Every structure is written in structure tokens, then in C-alpha cells.
């Protein structure tokens, strides 16, 4: 085999096993299948709608990506609850009026940041494993919600927020998608081209070495959990704009899919390798899959089976861990 063809086949292999490529192909394939089965599935408006639904998961998964990248068995199980809490606080403050919109956005985000700080402090200073800390935080946030709402969710989103999220801006694309795109670009830039990003990858790859290389591991990890809760809060507010009113488990269902999106997107659960682009595409794939299954009128039972099988298949392609025998 000549060196040129050997070189290109190696490059092709690297491209073909790149998680982002694989997931993108699957996303497109799913849309095509949907179009075949139910014409109109791939219509512009439909696709835009699906992307909008994906955007909430996508935003929440930004934080999850950062936390998982930070290594040390990093994970944030509280993102769903934090998102819900942010939405609830936001809707209560805004109360359907534009006058309070700024406060209605800032206060939930500040609270989300504080919750993230608590997560981070517990994980760093009390050495509590992230799984456990954020699991406990889930319960705590639930208790806070109970105390804050007295059991019933009240309030409405400010019209400005609803317009921002749902309003058609360009080519009838809703604002939510632009916000997602903007956030995605900023985060990817942060990860790849800033010192913070390279520090994060270093911390995720080898904490001891990072510590001995002049990086403040504590600050990096703390920052990761703060960002995670903050983006969860942001996602919750976007959801609020979308649904206009809240219920007590608004965003709970986003927690585990956010982890799935991250892993499906090629980020290693052990940290140190991966990025946000994969997560974003992963969020899209998961959403398109759900849409497809709904369109196919699949009974609930089959739907969740398919969910599980697809996840396993994707992971089997590129999420496999190293063998013990080299």
C-alpha cells in the first residue's frame, strides 16, 4: 500500500470514528427516516421546532459538559431541579409583566450560581463525590422549592421573555435558537482558545499534574460547578419563556438526558477529553429521536425501549473504554 493511500485511509478512519461526525450523520439520517415515514417531518418549520425543543436541553447540557470535562468523576445531577427552580422564581417575580423582567432573570441566575457554589464547595473542600453531592443537592433544591412555593407554582413569564424565546427573528427562526447558537459558540471558544479552557482540560486529564503545573485546581473545579448551575438556570428561564407558565417538575426530565447528550457527543465520562460541539449535536439527536418516535405513534413502552437501545448503540460505536490487555 503506498504511503499516500495509507495516510488518507488513516485520516478517513479518524474522521469516521469521530463522535461528532457519527452523531451528525445519525441526526440527519433520523430526519430522513422521519420524512420517509411521515412526510412533512423534514419540513423547514418542523425541523426548526425540533431544534427549538433541543435548545433547552442544549443549554442545560453546556454546564454538564463543563462539569464532566473537569474530571474527578464530575457530574451534576441537580441541573434539572436547578432549572426548574430558576423558572419558578423567575415566573413568580415577573408575574406576567415586563416591568420585572430584569430582576426576574437576574435573581434566579444569582441563586443558581449560589447553588452551584455550594455544590463546588462541598465537592472540593468536603471531598464529597460529585455524584453524591449533586444528588443531595437535588433533594435540597426540592425542599427549597417546597418552602418557596408552598406546594403550588404561581406566576407567569414576562411577555418580553416569551417573545425573546419564541419570537421569530430571522428566517422565522425563534430567538431561542439564536441564543443557543450564541452560547454554544462562546462556550466552544472558551474551551478551545482560552487559558480557562486549556486549564479545564488539564484538570480533567490529571489533577495532580495540573496542581503541580501552576493551575488552581480548586478554582477550576469550583468554576465548573458554578457554570453548570448557571447554565441550568439559564435553560430553566428559556423554558419558562417557552411554556409561559411553570409546574413543579418542569425541567426534571432534562437531567439524565443532559448526561446522555454529553456522552453521546464524545466527551469521556472520566473527563479530560471532549467538547461542547459534540454535546450540542447529541442534544439534537436525542430530541429528533423523541420526535420521530412520537410521530411514529409508538406506544410509550416501545418508545423508551428504543431510547435505551439507541443510546447503547451509539456508545458501542465510540464510547468504549480501554481493554485491560494492550
Amino acid at each position, binding site marked *: 500500500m503506498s504511503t499516500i493511500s495509507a495516510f488518507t485511509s488513516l485520516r478517513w478512519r479518524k474522521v469516521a470514528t469521530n463522535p461528532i461526525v457519527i452523531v451528525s450523520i445519525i441526526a440527519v439520517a433520523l430526519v430522513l427516516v422521519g420524512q420517509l415515514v411521515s412526510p412533512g417531518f423534514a419540513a423547514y418549520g418542523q425541523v426548526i421546532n425540533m431544534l427549538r425543543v433541543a435548545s433547552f436541553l442544549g443549554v442545560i447540557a453546556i454546564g454538564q459538559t463543563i462539569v464532566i470535562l473537569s474530571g474527578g468523576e464530575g457530574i451534576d445531577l441537580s441541573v434539572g431541579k436547578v432549572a426548574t427552580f430558576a423558572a419558578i422564581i423567575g415566573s413568580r417575580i415577573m408575574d406576567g409583566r415586563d416591568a420585572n423582567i430584569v430582576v426576574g432573570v437576574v435573581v434566579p441566575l444569582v441563586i443558581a450560581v449560589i447553588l452551584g457554589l455550594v455544590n463546588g464547595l462541598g465537592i472540593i473542600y468536603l471531598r464529597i463525590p460529585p455524584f453524591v453531592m449533586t444528588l*443531595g443537592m437535588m433533594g435540597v433544591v*426540592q425542599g427549597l422549592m417546597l418552602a418557596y412555593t408552598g406546594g403550588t407554582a404561581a406566576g407567569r413569564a414576562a411577555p418580553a421573555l416569551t417573545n425573546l424565546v419564541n419570537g421569530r427573528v430571522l428566517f422565522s427562526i425563534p430567538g431561542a435558537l439564536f441564543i443557543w447558537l450564541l452560547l454554544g459558540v462562546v462556550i466552544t471558544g472558551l474551551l478551545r482558545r482560552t487559558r480557562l479552557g486549556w486549564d479545564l482540560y488539564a484538570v480533567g486529564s490529571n489533577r495532580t499534574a495540573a496542581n503541580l503545573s501552576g493551575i488552581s485546581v480548586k478554582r477550576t473545579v469550583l468554576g465548573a460547578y458554578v457554570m453548570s448551575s448557571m447554565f441550568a438556570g439559564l435553560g430553566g428561564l428559556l423554558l419558562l419563556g417557552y411554556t409561559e407558565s411553570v409546574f413543579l417538575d418542569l425541567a426534571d426530565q432534562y437531567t439524565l438526558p443532559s448526561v446522555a447528550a454529553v456522552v453521546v457527543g464524545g466527551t469521556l465520562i472520566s473527563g479530560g477529553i471532549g467538547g461542547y460541539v459534540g454535546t450540542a449535536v447529541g442534544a439534537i439527536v436525542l430530541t429528533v429521536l423523541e420526535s420521530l418516535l412520537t410521530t411514529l405513534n409508538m*406506544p410509550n*413502552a416501545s418508545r423508551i425501549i428504543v431510547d435505551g437501545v439507541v*443510546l447503547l448503540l451509539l456508545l458501542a460505536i465510540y464510547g468504549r473504554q480501554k481493554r485491560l*490487555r494492550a
Partner: protein
Amino acid sequence: MRTDTAKVETSSPRKTVWRFVMDLRVQALTTWVLLAIAVTLDAILQPTFFTLYSITSNFATFVPLVLVAIAQTIVVVGGGLDLSLGAVVALSSVLAVTIMGGRGDRIGLGFLVAVGAGAACGLANGLIVSVVRLQPLIATLATASIFSGLTLVVLPKPGGNVPAVMTEAYRMAVAGIPVSVLAVVVAVALWLLLTRTKLMRHIYAVGGDPAAAYASLVPVTRVRTASYVLAGAFSGLAAMALLANSGSGDPFVGADIALNSIAAVVVGGVALRGGRGGAIGAVVGAIVLAIASNVLFFFNVPTTYRQLANGLVIISALALSVLSPGKGAKR
């Protein structure tokens, strides 16, 4: 060449057998303390707490979580995690209730089916984690979906009848000891028996250091798979306990049993990275969690706020373990 005396290097202190015992005690100590607190609280709120009736019905609700906590311990000690155990319990229970069809003579068959189904699910989990080599957290999330779906296929809506003999026996007492309490004792006894086997020793080894275990001729793949199979089998037993308690089939049962079992395991002092800890701590942890849930119930907190209970217990457990001496300094 650097010459050396036979003196011990200053960087590693030597612990004696005594300190080893002290360590064990301290680790479990926080769990026992929590148990004491939980029991006291519940006793205050529920004056009838110590009657036979109340102990029977309390333990009756403990048993499933206790069994799943043991199951989770086995997997976690082996370095893994199983988030699908709730779905496994559900699937095993609907299969068993369907097969039994309310007939008392089919109870033995029911047990076989439940444990068998659990073990089969465990086998699937084990193979996916150790042969296909997917990360356990995500893989068992996916299989949880699959098992839940299958559960709905078998029994789309709550229904079915558990043989009356089973539910009655569950509420009886043998020689003054409630059957449900005996069930917990038997579960613990099973665990202790397990710890004397080569398989369990190997599970600890694989959890402690998989590469070292591999180089030590431990059949790592087989051992890991076996840990999930055992967990599935114990979950099958939990399914039977659930059925005996509730009297009918329910495909939506066990929704948060998986996360609760992890909470129990953590509260019980089992290390999530594997290789350390035992199921006795997890069993006590499970009981503490269940009692905490009862306590919240008395404050009129709806049961959907179960996670709040878990959160509080986990935080208390961790706070206690940080404050207690000896465990504070982590390596």
C-alpha cells in the same frame, strides 16, 4: 547506589491491626449514629413506633430497599454502578405476578421467575459493561429504559393479584419475630455468606485495582459480569418482597429505588470508587433513609418529596463523617 538501613521510610506510617479495627468502627459509626437519630425522631413522632404492628409494617417497607442496597453494594464494590436496579425490580415483579396468577401453589415458581429475570437483566448489564466496555453510569441508564419498556409491555397498567398466602405470610410473625424482619436477617446472612466466597474476594479486587487484578490472573470480565448478575438476583428478591407488601402488580414501582440504593450505599460508608466497604453499612443506610421518609410523611410532606429526605440524610451522613475524628483526614 544509595545505601539504606533496614529502617522504615518516613513517608509511610504503619498501622496495626488495632487501628484497622478502629477505622472500620468509625466508618460505620456515623451510619449507626444516624440510625439512632432517625429511630428516635420517628419514635417521637409516632408514639406507636415500637409496637409489633408498627415494626412489622415499617420493616415490610424496608425490605425491598434493603435488598436493592445489598445489590448495589455488590456492584459498587466491584467498581461499577447500576442505575437500572429499579427497572429490574419492576420487570421482575410484573413477570412474577403474571406467572403466579394469584395461585398459592405457584409461589415457588414466582420466586424462580423473579430471581431469574433479575439475574438475566444483570447478565445483560454485566456483559454491556465488561465485554462491550461501556461506562456503567450511562449504560445502566440505557438498560433502565429498556427494562422499563419491557415492564410496560408485560403489564401496561397496574393489576394482577399476588397470591393471598404470600401477602398474609408477610404480615405474620414467626416465634414473635415479624416475617419482614426475618427477611432482612436472611438478606444480611446471604451477604455474609457471599463475603466468604472467592467470587466476592475477586469482586473486591477488581474494584480496588482492575489492572492489578487482571495481572493477578483474576478473570476480570467474568467477575464484573457476575457482580451485576448477583445484583440482579437480589433485585429479583426485592421484587418479591414488594409484591408481598403491596398485593398486586404495578409497572411503575421502583421508580427511584436505584438512586435511593446509591444513597443508602453512600450513607453506609461504601466507597463509590470500589474496593471498599460492606453491605451491612448499606443495609443500615437503607433503613435510615426509609425512616427519614416516614418522618417527613409526618410533617405532611408529600411522598413526591422523597428526594428531599434523601438529600437531608445524605448531607447529615456526610457532615457527620467529616466531623468525626479519624475519617476527617482523607488521603
